[in-house]
């Protein structure tokens, strides 16, 4: 059922959510809009195309404790479990889509990532459709759109001075019927559908430039192409692309101990770093930038699709905007298509 909520009522709802649980929302600080825990709706910035870092920070934090150990003479291990419930507000459609891609890796298969699963279960995602996609956005290339709501518990669409809202899951309905009680009004179904349609059809200019159709298959026999030599020369070897990416999920396990006790952490790692695959004996299967750059793009556009049947990219455009040298996935897709067309 479609609902509406006024801007003021949305503020009240967010204030209530911030008071009763941990609310994560976009905050503008020192020129950067990023997701942060907030105490009140007044801290929230609403004027952003997308946040500098994604919801990944809160579902799969950059470093998180897994266990505590004591090694004084004996050994005891205590598992640490993430317990805190949280509500995330202002999540854009591309980032909602990225959560589904992370889910495939971390919650399916023989083993599940219990930490991620627990956070997922304890997080309410409030999506916010995109009013003005940035010139680096290309979600439409992957079949998403500025109004794409899959993955949201509650989806909001700005409609003039109010918001169209839709609760899409039990968690979402609990928000709308609980803290949101009395703040939402039923919407005119036809008008609401028209708003959704307008968002779904909103133009994403850069998306038109990036055609991903069939790129997974094009890459099947592209491993040895000269292209990787040429393109990787530009790479600086930093980890910006992987760390701002809402779908990159590679990690590292590491210990920190003081005296006889310590913690084991899980932290993000980056396939762009030289030490990422270097083995204890010194052998490194990806010794140069060429192999590492190739790995990153092959993983997103070929290996992951082989395993999980979708691309590991949602066109959020963060790497397009933030790569210091303009070496990003949209460019690689265009290049590969160009190389293949001339081959």
């Amino acid at each position, binding site marked *: 059922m479609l609902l509406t909520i006024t801007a003021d009522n949305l503020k009240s709802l967010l204030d209530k959510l911030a008071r009763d649980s941990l609310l994560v929302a976009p905050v503008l600080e020192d020129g950067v809009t990023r997701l942060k*825990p907030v*105490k009140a709706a007044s801290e929230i910035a609403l004027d952003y195309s997308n946040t500098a870092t994604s919801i990944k920070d809160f579902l799969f934090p950059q470093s998180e404790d897994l266990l505590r150990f004591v090694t004084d003479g004996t050994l005891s291990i205590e598992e640490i479990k993430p317990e805190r419930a949280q509500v995330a507000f202002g999540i854009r459609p591309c980032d909602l889509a990225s959560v589904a891609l992370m889910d495939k890796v971390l919650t399916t298969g023989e083993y599940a990532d219990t930490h991620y699963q627990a956070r997922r279960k304890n997080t309410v995602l409030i999506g916010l459709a995109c009013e003005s996609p940035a010139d680096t956005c290309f979600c439409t290339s992957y079949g998403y759109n500025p109004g794409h709501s899959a993955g949201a518990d509650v989806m909001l669409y700005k409609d003039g001075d109010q918001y169209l809202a839709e609760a899409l899951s039990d968690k979402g309905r609990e928000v709308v019927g609980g803290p949101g009680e009395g703040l939402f009004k039923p919407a005119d179904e036809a008008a609401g559908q028209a708003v959704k349609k307008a968002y779904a059809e909103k133009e994403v200019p850069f998306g038109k430039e990036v055609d991903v159709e069939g790129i997974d298959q094009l890459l099947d026999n592209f491993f040895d192409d000269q292209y990787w030599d040429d393109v990787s020369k530009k790479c600086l070897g930093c980890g910006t692309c992987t760390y701002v990416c809402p779908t990159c999920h590679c990690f590292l396990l590491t210990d920190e101990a003081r005296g006889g006790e*310590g913690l084991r952490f899980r932290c993000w790692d980056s396939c762009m770093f030289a030490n990422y695959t270097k083995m204890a004996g010194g052998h490194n299967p990806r010794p140069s930038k060429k192999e590492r750059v190739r790995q990153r793009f092959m993983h997103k556009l070929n290996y992951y699709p082989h395993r999980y049947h979708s691309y590991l990219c949602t066109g959020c455009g963060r790497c397009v905007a933030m790569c210091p040298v303009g070496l990003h996935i949209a460019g690689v897709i265009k290049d590969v298509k160009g190389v293949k067309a001339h081959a």
Partner: protein
Amino acid sequence: MSVNEKAAPAAGPATNPTTATPAPEGWEPKIIGFACNWCTYAGADLAGTSRIQYPPNIRVIRVPCSGRINPQFVVRAFQRGADGVLVAGCHPGDCHYSTGNYFARRRYLLAKRFIEYLGVEPERLQVRWISGSEGQKFADTVRELTEKLRALGPQRRLRETL
């Protein structure tokens, strides 16, 4: 919550450096002293053998030369729980290796200002030239530093959380 605020509860900077938290009951300042083997360490020794009284708040780490004391050591000491750091070596001109302390002097002129610039109170990092015969100066320096730190309270701005 974002890991970037791991050290901080949801309400902004965790160890909020702007609010002074009172020192816990029974708190004693902890000082890490990096002392050059040839002068300051001998000076500290002399203070001991001459039975000069000074506060027991300092833990001395002996290094070959003040030129060996990487400013990273100082930052780490603060992070791992030091309330104050003393960097000490031979007087200029007296270096066992001729020039080590001249390099240290340049380095700490810059590093001391830089560490302060990052927000550590200036009193917490002391650099002193203390020779092997200056047992009294060593004791005085430690006493002076201890008193200053006692007035300042625990160092929290560079403290790490495990």
